[in-house]
């Protein structure tokens, strides 16, 4: 029998031994250096990281986009024929024939692999931490996008245009967007600001602060967000604050409901879903909000 | 109060064999009646069946010539003070609070305790020698003290009879004799007292009638000298015993013998 003192030490070593296997497991050399396409950065400062450098002129033929707004951009750029798969949330009829990888967050890696993509566009940030590692293991290049604000949309269009060799189309789309936004802003500038709040239903209702996509659109469209002091992008707000802050118009998505006690005293106008998701139709979203705020001025 | 059972067959859910199999017994009024038997012979089951908590498959129980099912529970609680073998309280209570629960069967739905109730509680506390512990939490008492408190609660019910499951199990000599003396006094005063106990000697000394159970069946019922026979006891308890007469008390004395052959002279 081992002497009493040595036994715990031996037990500890036995317990730790399997861990050494982890160190031996991966014999691969250092990971390849990350290439940064120029100007590939979103408004919040985070990188759209390319996990494998593309040679200039190398053509990307097979794309799977896990981000619906990026899919829209690709189609708008005229590169829709290069899409080989979609997510369950890509509901446009033109894409219906493509096989689906499931959700955009946590897609089916098997289906993805079977589609043999040259490039996967995925959500950046920390909403889906598993997918990038998986894609690296399978040696599939991927591009992270975080379309949260109006500027992100411009950047995303530009980046994708550069990557897919459709830079001119990208510029033209961005210019169109900018022109339309400028028109909305100009019309709104001549009107008195409307005190407004954008609410998602629930008890308590959830309001958008200025630091959100919808908050930006409200500012563009001549609205005065009564929750300008919110302090964080979204937050539940006390129902009584909606009454106390003299809201002229409450904006809600189609199909959403407000507490009847508030609905009785406030003007509620519904806007289309396009205002929630940043994408290439940002000008339509701005117009939708402008119409809700100034119905007479915007047809 | 009299207790009577005829041909009881009681089976616990899912058990292969019945806990009581054809038990008949009769407790006359004002008697101190002891129920004896080895572990698992059905003593506690018999108590629960007599009190109407367990329903027999067949056979019946009569308390004061009325079937136990016909007794209203509160009425029965005013008539019989029953103390089970053990209780596990979830929340701490003081001794006085626990004993005061003995008065619940006497209180109307909206009434609070009156002077009469408080006096009954005080008397009960005194008789069981726990009055000095009245404000102590029950959880801080020794096993024997808790047992006396529970007997006090039964006395506070001011019942016409008592049914107790191993009331002296954790008590020291002084308290055991005091309780048995109390029970004997109560019986002499007209109360019917049923006691389940392991102490063959004390049962033989204090009880008027004994019931001996074995594996759910009645082995014998009668006066102590008739029931406490060496050959019967040895068979039932599975251990050789000798029975003689205690020269001091005059009651039967049971002596468990050593197993194996007797030592050489």
């Amino acid at each position, binding site marked *: 029998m081992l002497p009493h003192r040595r036994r715990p030490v031996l037990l500890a070593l036995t317990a730790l031994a399997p861990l050494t296997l982890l160190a031996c497991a991966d014999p691969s050399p250092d990971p390849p250096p990350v290439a940064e396409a120029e100007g590939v950065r979103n408004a919040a400062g985070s990188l759209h990281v390319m996990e494998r450098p593309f040679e200039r002129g190398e053509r990307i033929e097979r794309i799977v986009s896990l981000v619906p707004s990026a899919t829209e951009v690709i189609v708008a750029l005229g590169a829709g024929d290069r899409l080989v798969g979609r997510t369950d949330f890509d509901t446009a009829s033109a894409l219906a024939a493509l096989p689906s990888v499931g959700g955009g967050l946590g897609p089916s890696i098997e289906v993805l692999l079977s589609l043999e993509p040259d490039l996967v566009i995925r959500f950046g940030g920390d909403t889906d931490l598993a997918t990038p590692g998986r894609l690296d293991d399978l040696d599939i290049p991927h591009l992270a996008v975080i379309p949260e604000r109006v500027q992100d949309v411009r950047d995303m269009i530009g980046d994708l245009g550069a990557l897919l060799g459709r830079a001119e189309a990208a510029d033209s789309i961005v210019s169109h967007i900018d022109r339309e936004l400028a028109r909305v802003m100009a019309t709104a500038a001549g009107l008195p600001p409307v005190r407004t709040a954008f609410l998602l239903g629930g*008890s308590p209702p959830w309001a958008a602060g200025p630091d959100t996509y919808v908050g930006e659109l409200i500012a563009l469209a001549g609205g005065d967000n009564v929750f300008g002091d919110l302090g964080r992008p979204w937050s539940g707000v006390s129902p009584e604050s909606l009454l106390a802050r003299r809201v002229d118009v409450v904006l809600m998505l189609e199909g959403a409901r407000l507490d009847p006690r508030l609905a009785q005293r406030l003007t509620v106008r519904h806007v289309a879903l396009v205002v929630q998701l940043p994408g290439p139709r940002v000008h339509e979203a701005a117009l939708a909000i402008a119409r809700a705020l100034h119905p007479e001025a915007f047809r | 109060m009299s207790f009577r059972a005829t041909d009881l067959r009681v089976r616990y*859910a899912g058990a292969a064999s019945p806990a009581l199999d054809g038990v008949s017994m009769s407790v006359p009024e004002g008697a101190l009646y002891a129920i004896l038997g080895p572990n698992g012979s059905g003593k506690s089951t018999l108590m629960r069946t007599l*009190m109407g908590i367990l329903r027999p498959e067949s056979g019946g129980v009569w308390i004061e010539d009325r079937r136990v099912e016909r007794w209203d529970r509160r009425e029965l609680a005013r008539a019989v003070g*029953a103390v089970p073998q053990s209780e596990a309280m979830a929340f701490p209570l003081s001794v006085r609070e626990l004993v005061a629960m003995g008065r*619940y069967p006497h209180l109307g739905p909206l009434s609070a305790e009156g002077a009469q109730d408080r006096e009954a509680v005080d008397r009960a506390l005194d008789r069981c020698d726990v009055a000095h512990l009245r404000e102590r939490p029950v959880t801080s008492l020794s096993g024997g003290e808790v047992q006396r408190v529970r007997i006090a609660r039964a006395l506070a019910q001011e019942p016409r009879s008592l049914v107790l499951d191993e009331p002296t199990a954790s008590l020291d000599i002084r308290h055991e004799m005091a309780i048995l003396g109390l029970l004997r006094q109560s019986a002499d005063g007209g109360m019917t007292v049923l006691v389940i106990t392991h102490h063959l000697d004390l049962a033989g000394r204090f009880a008027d009638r004994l019931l001996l159970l074995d594996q759910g069946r009645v082995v014998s019922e009668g006066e102590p000298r008739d029931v406490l026979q060496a050959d019967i006891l040895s068979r039932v308890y599975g251990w050789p015993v000798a029975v003689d007469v205690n020269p001091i008390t005059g009651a039967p004395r049971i002596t468990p013998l050593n197993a194996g052959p007797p030592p050489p002279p």
Partner: protein
Amino acid sequence: MSRRGLATLLVLITVVAVATAIRFGAEPLTSRDVLAAFRGGGSAGARYIVLDFRLPRALLACLIGGGLALAGATFQALLRNPLAEPYILGISGGAAAGAVGVLALGWVTAASWTLPAAAFAGALLAILLVFSVAAAADRALDVRVLLLAGVVVGAFFSAVIALILSMSEARTVRGAVLWMMGSLAAADWQAVTMVAAYTVPAALVLLGLARSLNLLAIGEETASYLGTDVERVKLVAYGVASLITAAGVAVAGVIGFVGLIVPHGVRLLVGSDYRALLPLSFLAGAAFLTFADLLARVVLAPAEIPIGVVTAFVGVPLFLVLLRRSLTR
């Protein structure tokens, strides 16, 4: 602390809690505005805020806080377990499954009562399942079987919720999680009436069962020997306590800790006699939740913190303090 003393103190604290909850809110109103609102004067806006938002909300906090404390104390006696609380038999799981289901199906927008109705239905389903399981095993509603059935049914509903959420979009998931954290924001007069309709009669029934609960807390055999019709009392008490809990959860989501710590706090002050414990727990629960809701509304105004978060943040340290006090005695 004497029982009468504590009762007076708690009534006072509850009154102060309600008054404070009406006086203060996300938006500043002066005392004059508030008093004027009660007299029918002042601005229409202030009147609306005070009479249609703050007053029903304060009353609902009292009803639900008191009801949960009452239910918690009752379950503690019935299950003879100091860790018992209103959700121990899977009621919150059932209610949450009902609410999340309706949120995922988008039926919430159909009418304002669909969400509470679905939550209530889910709670009732959970109650039915637990008691059917317990009754099938052994007709006598055995404590251990009930506890086990409650855990199992709760786990089942958690799995249902997880399944629904895994297939839902982000908006639904956010809504579901927030509902489950609890909120009194939907406290209109309809909600107050509904909860009062369940809680007030139920509270009276339980107060009438106080002695029986004292006896059950010692043991079912002993309770029977002391005159309790054990099966009838258990049926009524379980049923009534479950309904109080279901009504509260349906309207306000899962508000934790009130049902567990309030009865224990009161126990430490006046002992475990249910004749005092029940009414005092009701008052303490009412005051506690009213103050907690005030904090939820005011601390980060105009934002509202889910009330389940406030009760946990306040309740957990409080509970630990009480626990230490009770152990070192």
